[in-house]
């Protein structure tokens, strides 16, 4: 394997560069996927039938908590990658752990929110509005959940194998994924919650 020393570890082999490009393209596909979910939500968000409407359902507090947690985690994973580029394995791992903990916090809040919704009589079967809302949120949440386990797997590998072109590449790609989820959340925050409460 040819290693190009002039580039950061995660870019240092041809294979790594292919993977990074491939992942960006995958993110392009994810943009299309989430756009479709948004399109569905925007089309159906008034279709609440006899169930609760957006105004009735949304509360600002948990949403703000989720937003702060996720934005912060996006920041910390950025720092993690920065530390990785400096070759600071310990610092990098610390930032990754913080990121994943914040991610768990996000998930916890979101689950709490869902339970609240169900208490208010809004399940995924209640109306087209709740179906599309919960599917959009759920898809994002599932991505975060998957990201959590993926992050754990990468942490284990970094701990065991150190910072190699391979592990650095995985960590970097993981960070792209995590930032992307943050971007999606911002759109959910703005155009689902804030717009819904406006």
């Amino acid at each position, binding site marked *: 394997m040819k290693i190009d020393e002039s580039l950061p570890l995660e870019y240092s082999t041809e294979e790594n560069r*292919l993977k990074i490009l491939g992942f960006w393209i*995958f993110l392009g*596909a994810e943009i299309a*996927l989430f756009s479709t979910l948004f399109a569905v939500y925007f089309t*159906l968000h008034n*279709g609440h039938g006899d169930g609760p409407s957006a105004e009735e359902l949304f509360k600002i507090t948990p949403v703000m908590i989720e937003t702060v947690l996720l934005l912060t985690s996006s920041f910390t994973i950025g720092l993690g990658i920065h530390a990785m580029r400096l070759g600071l394995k310990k610092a990098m791992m610390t930032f990754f752990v913080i990121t994943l903990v914040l991610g768990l916090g996000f998930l916890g809040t979101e689950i709490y929110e869902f339970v609240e919704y169900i208490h208010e009589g809004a399940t995924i079967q209640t109306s087209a*509005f709740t179906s599309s809302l919960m599917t959009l949120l759920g898809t994002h949440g599932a991505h975060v959940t998957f990201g959590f386990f993926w992050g754990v797997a990468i942490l284990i*590998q970094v701990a065991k194998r150190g910072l190699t072109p391979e592990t650095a590449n995985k960590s970097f790609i993981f960070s792209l994924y995590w930032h992307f989820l943050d971007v999606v959340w911002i759109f959910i925050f703005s155009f689902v919650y804030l717009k819904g409460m406006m």
Partner: protein
Amino acid sequence: MESHEQQFLILNEPMIVGAMISIVVGALSLFIGITYFKKWGYLWREWITTVDHKKIGVMYILVALVMLFRGGVDALLMRGQTAMPENGLLDAQHYNEIFTTHGVIMILFMAMPFIIGLMNVVTPLQIGARDVAFPRLNSVSFWLFAVGTGLFNISFIIGGSPDAGWSAYFPLASLEFSPTVGNNYYAISLQIAGLGTLATGINFLVTILKMRAPGMTLMKMPMFTWSILITNVIIVFAFPVLTVALALMTMDRQFGTKFFAMQDGGMDMLWANLFWVWGHPEVYIVILPAFGIYSEIISTFARKNLYGYKSMVISMVAISLLSFVVWAHHFYTMGHGVMVNSVFSITTMLIAVPTGVKIFNWLLTLHKGKISFTTPMLYSLAFIPIFTIGGVTGVMLAMASADYQYHNTMFLVAHFHYVLIPGTVFAVIAGFHFWFPKVFGFRLNEKLGKLAFWFITISFNVAFFPLFILGLNGMTRRMYTYSESTGYGPLNMLSFLGAVGLGIGFIILVYNLYWSIRYSPRDETGDPWDARSLEWATHGPVPFYNFARIPQVNDLDAFWYAKKHNKPLWSGPIEKIHMPNNSGMPFLMSGAFFGAGFCLVFSWWIPTIIFTILIFVFMALRSFEQDHGYYVSVEEVERIERELGGEK
């Protein structure tokens, strides 16, 4: 007209029982045969676990050929049923299942994989690469596709086929109106195959963007590679829409959500909308590679470079962008205002412009050429006039007002067969004949090839031209029978005869395969057609590492240039070659997908969850796996090259 009750094995239908028996017998004899000839190891080592793009491509094409026959038998049954008024070959339920599976299979399990197969075989060779960017992922793609195909096809005997049309409009496809598991199969098998397709899209984009031979700038790429690049862009951005649509369908049918429901704020029209947001780009996914294939073949057999290379590229980019903004032409009749229909009419008709540019460029490529009429060339030449009929009738459909009269009629059916068959099917057959010697080292017989060609081309027109007239006479599609007084009988009979002729043509085609494998003379040159692009520069059959040395490209049609000017394509010594390892994991993981999909179809939750966990376990295993591939030594490469008749 009794409706099918929910049942697991369909035992009350002679046709299905017959199919079941023949499948079981076929599978059993295959199993015994493989065991008898001790081929399991060979199969596992050389095919099931392979990550070689050429072998994966061959497997795609094999499945596609089988599916062509499955879809073709469906077609013959439909044409047989409607050949005469009040015919009793099929009842309504059967007819409905059959046109649904015919449409799905032909588009998603025949046209797509055939194209993906050719793209697998050819693209890395054309750009002078050793493999695709992610060989392991490529294998995953294939096996997911294979599993999706298998799942869709077993619906026929276990549980019942989908019966709401390939477009599966809600509310018809909802649990209320389609209570059998048929549409679960539809949603889940397309979902699994679609994931594979998406992965293919990413894989080939990276391959083409990053792995071209030195010197091959984008504007020096062969036109087929260009068409694949653009096609994969469409795949990457269109398939997520299908993913979402199918997921919503599954949830509506199996989890009681209300997306497309008739109550609680649901919107049945939204399914149609999402389906076509994907569905329209999909038809360009199957036509653009065809355009690429024709470009290669026409320029090869006119012995001329492709006319207007740049405008060919620009027009494909234009088509790819336009393909995303026209979908509503599939439901002009849904009652939205003049405004919506006008906008989509105009965007739709605009696609005629770049397509026309391509047609005229091909014609001008022939100009001053030296045209030899080989089998692949015949298909490519037949494509131009016949596809143009399909295209201009498409423009007629694009006129919203007029479409109020064509929509859902046989006129529409005629349109899309006139684009799909001379467009996509002729192209993949032409590509099959053209690249066959590259992969197997011998050509298909030309005489038989031409015989099949004439059968197919003439019968095609006999089978489908009458449908235009029937459509204008008010015959709607998806109608299993009609009364004598309609007067539709004679033309339908004519069309049936055409379909039989098509069947005979395809039988000759397959016979040609058999004949050529046995008797065709082997070709040693690797370049039997005196062709132009890099894939012909290496040996045929191609060694597993493709090129002993990576070629250096200075020109469009690099190989042609090298031949004509006696310039070598490569220099320097042979170096050791890095190759990826085979792996059984993609196959096994796809097995887990099959399990999960099958159980999900029947809403068996616990096994579904177990299989799903298994899928994630495979992903985790893959994450922890350390596999750096292996090296082929210089001596080994030299030995292989010598055996293949001299270094290339």
